């Protein structure tokens, strides 16, 4: 299949990019004063110089920067992400624990934002310059302008503290052990507020894009033709307009997968979720270089994978892309 070669080529092209990012971050972190042993001392509240020296040796920090980087890349070639100095276990294991939470949160938020963005965008476009459009566009603007940490905290105040409907944080209820469907429901219950908090900004973007692209497609010739054929308005919108108007939306998903990983740092902190974003933040504070590089590596793979899926979707939506016209 032509699309697979296309995607494969893309994947290959992203390898040097990922490598450059890794080296860049490695060097950038060298400029930050202090290493993981300094961070460890800060956490311990004291220690003597001999202990520090011993710890530096233990973590291989007594080597030169070039040697450390060389070691890291050589391990990476063998698919070994190294050992985390904060968690005391392999980086791959640390990331594997955190990845599901972040993927769950990202998927939920993206689906929420995409679905409601699409619906609201279509409604706004159909009623352009009438009251539904005004209401929806204003709402979109508010969502877009609200910082997610503020939104998250306000949501906690309203829904957790006053109404007591939803939990204020955490991934699942730990006071009672739940299994099977109850556990799934419990996790879903805990993810409602984080999903909305992370999703609203993206929802605002999707609805603006959807509205604009609907308006554009609605004015194209083939729509007029479809109408002239006597198709009813719903048919025109669903079968002709929507499919074409979705292309920019799908492009955005690919672009926003990366942004969302960044945005999840805030949401994961506010809702105390054990995700990748918070792990990345903590690794910087603790100067845990291996973990940080591991996260960058995995995130880069994640973004590549999402873009690959977007390419596949593209081909479904617009066959011209694969035929190379």
């Amino acid at each position, binding site marked *: 299949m032509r699309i697979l070669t296309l995607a494969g080529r893309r994947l290959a092209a992203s390898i040097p990019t990922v490598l450059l990012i890794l080296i860049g971050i490695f060097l950038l972190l060298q400029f930050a004063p202090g290493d993981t042993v300094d961070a460890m001392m800060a*956490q311990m509240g004291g220690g003597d110089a001999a202990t520090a020296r011993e710890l530096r040796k233990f973590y291989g920090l007594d080597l030169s920067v070039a040697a450390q980087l060389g070691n890291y890349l050589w391990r990476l070639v063998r698919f070994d992400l190294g050992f985390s100095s904060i968690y005391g276990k392999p980086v791959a294991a640390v990331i594997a624990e955190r990845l599901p939470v972040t993927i769950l949160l990202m998927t939920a938020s993206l689906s929420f934002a995409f679905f409601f963005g699409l619906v609201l965008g279509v409604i706004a476009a159909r009623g352009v310059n009438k009251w539904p459009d005004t209401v929806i566009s204003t709402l979109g603007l508010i969502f877009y302008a609200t910082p997610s940490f503020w939104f998250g905290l306000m949501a906690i105040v309203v829904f957790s503290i006053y109404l007591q409907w939803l939990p204020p944080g955490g991934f699942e209820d730990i006071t009672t052990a739940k299994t099977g469907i109850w556990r799934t429901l419990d996790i879903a219950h805990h993810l409602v507020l984080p999903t909305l908090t992370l999703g609203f900004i993206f929802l605002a973007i999707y609805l603006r894009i959807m509205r604009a692209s609907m308006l554009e497609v609605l004015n194209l010739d083939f729509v007029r033709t479809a109408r002239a054929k006597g198709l009813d308005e719903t048919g025109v919108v669903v079968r002709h307009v929507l499919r074409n108007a979705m292309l920019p939306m799908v492009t955005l998903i690919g672009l926003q997968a990366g942004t969302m990983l960044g945005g999840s740092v805030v949401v994961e*902190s506010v809702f105390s979720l*054990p995700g990748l974003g918070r792990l990345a933040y903590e690794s910087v*504070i603790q100067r845990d270089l291996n973990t940080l590089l591991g996260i960058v590596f995995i995130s880069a793979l994640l973004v590549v994978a999402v873009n690959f899926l977007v390419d596949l979707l593209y081909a479904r939506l617009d066959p011209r892309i694969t035929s190379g016209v």
Partner: protein
Amino acid sequence: MSSHRFDMTRRAALMTSAAIAANVAFPQRSFAQETPRKGGVFTVHYGAEQRQLNPSLQASTGVYIIGGKIQEALVDLDANGQPVGVLAESWESSADGKTITFKLRQGVTWHDGKPFTSADVAFTAMEMWKKILNYGSTLQLFLTAVDTPDPHTAVFRYERPMPLSLLLRALPDLGYISAKHIYETGDIRANPANLAPVGTGPFKFVQYERGQHIIAERNPNYWRPNAPYLDRIIWRVVTDRAAASAQVEAGQIHYSPFSGLTISDSARLAKDKRYIVSTKGNEGNPRTNTVEFNFRRKELADIRVRQAIAHALNIPFFIENFLGDFAKLGVGPIPSVSRDFFPSDNGPQYAYDKARAAKLLDEAGYKAGAGGERFSLRLLPAPWGEDISLFATFIQQSLSEVGIKVEIVRNDGGGFLKQVYDEHAFDLASGWHQYRNDPAVSTTVWYRSGQPKGAPWTNQWGWTDPVIDTIIDNAATEVDPGKRKALYGDFVRRANAELPIWTPIEQLFLTVISARARNHSNTPRWGSSTWHDLWLAE
């Protein structure tokens, strides 16, 4: 300037709440008539995760708050701040102070069922305290051996006299015991039990989910009769302070220790009947705010400049407007809550006097140039608490009024320690000094010369004073408690006169706890203690 004023008035309004004053004054409401209830889950706010949880390997409140429920120390402090036996039942010192004998509690078992013996004490002291534990390695520097004549006697042998009172005051923090049979093989630092501690304490470790929670449950074979009361303790990892106070309000967290919430949130919760906000139970962990001077700067090597800086800061104003009832004027390196060592005379004090500051700077030869500026300094505030950050800004603004321009350089924890204590890349630094019940444990190292470069929280100012070095060395090996106290009085007066570091503010950590909790805050290091008698009312 106007926004700055606004900020201060807003804070002033928050801090003057009568509720706080009431709670600080009467933190323990009377529950004498109640009978303790068995059962319940107590949830605790855990702000920063640790790399390991074994208190025999790391002395910090972050570890004690979890590890201190699972593992136990030889001694703890009672309600009056006096040493009381935990795993040790009694102790005595030889006349020369070189041999200290502990009689250990009998019938105590580890959580895995093995008996606790003197072999565990000897192993922990020699392999962990002396080699790995921060501050432990300094405290036990002259420990040569621990003899175990029988399973319930441990004899500590020292090369130089070890004051019994020093050891007993240090051991609540630096005296946690680990099981020999778990640690004797392999690298101690890499032992999996560091993250799944095994102890003799009232609670058994159950689970540690990184980034989420740590769980411990009741130890059914605990040696104290009828203890503990709680079924479980859950520590919830919440790194964001605002999120933590939301979880407290939503009832998901019962206890936020060691000033874990912001000052304004604590003040707000103090007005709510469901919580008790107080400094009680933290008398064993007092801290002072510090101003550290780098003597490598020629201006700061001049005592008149250091005195001028101290006189230029209006500390009572700062405390009143920014820290509220939680802090008071600091008078020296030994905080006033230290019943054993706080001297009756602290020596010179530096009251706010801008004119005097200007005069001292003139005398030192730093006359105001064009625009009123004399010279400029780099100030590095430690990132541990919001008070340090506020204080840095306050120092900057106050010193600009006497012609010293201050540039604030902010770092995270690792960066701060590296720059101040290893690279000496600071002119002024500001952080906390935490006092550990005896000045020899972690206070005198801030003043004793000859500290190796790279050792955090030690004398890295480039300051040497043979007089103070002698006082410190004599006091550390003086076995007579009265003479020791007198020597530390000399130490405080000398430190205040020479001013290598200034300790202008004294603070206690703030506790926010559910009003349902009983028997809490009843010892001076309660947050770190075992919680064997803590219970939750319905």
